[in-house]
């Protein structure tokens, strides 16, 4: 009978160190977080493309207006790396580089950090659902525990009713699941804590990229509309004047809608640290809920242990 008590004690010890068998964070919250990051990645790439296109268009217009005969400044230079290119001498002052060239590089960097954050969200989804994925193994392990317990009880000639046996087998399932769940939750809490400063920096970089891009769009808009506004002021032909005004209105619409998009993206980046903090509180509130579940298990174990004691033939 001492063995039975020891087994019950092992179960009790395992369960007291464990938490909920459900996924630590509501799965929908994590997929929502990941989808936000995927959306931000796509839209922020588009946003930097707006600025790139404005600058590239104005750059080409200036080259055409210069009408220079020396073609050397017009050829691309491949200074380093497999994919790097620049529209300038390799040893020229970086601050003199065409802006679109720098935007192209920023786009690569932003894509990299966006992707790193999406990978992080994928990882959390995987970690969050790790128990579900390995449920077959768990069930097999739990069945072994239940069968062994039943077999041991039979050998000792204990007559426990089926309901109690059923409950004991359930505890076996719960023990192995909760053993993993504790690891899962501890791991998730540690990973999220590790990533919190990264999420803050990412949000800061993302929102700053949008702000930098907004200054670019305003500047490029001025480049293009400065010439156009002057042409409108000096145009004597009414029809041509109207055509130019239409062009100006079109550019106004383009710039204002792009700035609005950047403002929305900026706000989305700013909101990310809070969204991440909400995921952490979901994890914490899950721990609180599982405490009640845990108390339930301990009571059940106590009850079954008492049944064993009462049934002790010695």
């Amino acid at each position, binding site marked *: 009978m001492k063995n039975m008590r020891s087994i019950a004690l092992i179960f009790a010890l395992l369960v007291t160190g464990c938490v909920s068998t459900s996924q630590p964070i509501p799965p929908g919250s994590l997929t929502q977080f990941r989808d936000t990051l995927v959306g931000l990645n796509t839209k922020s790439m588009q946003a930097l493309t707006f600025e790139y296109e404005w600058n590239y268009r104005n750059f080409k217009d200036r080259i055409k207006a210069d009408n220079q005969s020396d073609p050397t400044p017009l050829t691309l230079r491949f200074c380093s790396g497999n994919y790097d290119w620049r529209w300038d001498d390799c040893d020229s002052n970086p601050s003199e580089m065409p802006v679109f060239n720098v935007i192209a590089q920023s786009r690569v960097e932003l894509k990299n*950090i966006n992707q790193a954050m999406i990978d992080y969200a994928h990882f959390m989804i995987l970690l969050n659902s790790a128990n579900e994925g390995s449920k077959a193994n768990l069930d097999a392990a739990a069945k072994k525990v239940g069968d062994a317990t039943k077999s041991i009880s039979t050998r000792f000639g204990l007559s426990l009713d089926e309901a109690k046996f059923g409950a004991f087998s359930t505890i076996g399932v719960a023990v192995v699941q909760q053993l*993993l769940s504790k690891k899962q939750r501890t791991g998730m809490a540690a*990973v999220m804590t590790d990533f919190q400063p990264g999420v803050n920096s990412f949000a800061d970089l993302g929102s700053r990229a949008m702000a930098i891009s907004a200054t670019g769009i*305003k500047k490029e808009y001025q480049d293009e509309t*400065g010439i156009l506004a002057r042409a409108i002021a000096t145009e004597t032909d009414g029809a041509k004047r109207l055509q130019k005004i239409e062009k100006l209105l079109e550019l106004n619409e383009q710039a204002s809608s792009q700035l609005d998009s950047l403002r929305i993206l900026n706000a989305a980046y700013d909101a990310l640290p809070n969204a991440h903090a909400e995921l952490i509180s979901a994890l914490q509130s899950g721990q609180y809920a599982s405490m009640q579940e845990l108390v339930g298990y301990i009571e059940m174990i106590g009850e079954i242990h008492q049944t064993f004691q009462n049934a002790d033939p010695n």
Partner: protein
Amino acid sequence: MTQDEKLELVNFLIFLRGKLQSLAIKLLLIGEDPAKVDQAEKKLAKRIDQLRVNIMQNWQGDAKQLMGELRQSNQKAQRYLRELKDAQDRAGKLGEILGLIDKGLGALAKLLPV
């Protein structure tokens, strides 16, 4: 100068440039030569571009640093997945241990029938 201050400055220079562009057009409309204003506006536009490039390059430096930090965090995260896998193995072992206890008790039962 911080990145935020640089952003604030570039926004202010853009605002000033808009003022210069409007002034040049007003001079044109009243028949005055806007050449000097145009010259100042072009200089300002060049400064704005230089500042934009500078801000973006600083941003790229910060982005590279963050990528390094994220890689480190990711390595730690992978360790937790490995630990979880170890725990799964342990859960399987628990069943095996209980099976062995069962066998041991069975042997004991043969020696000392209840």
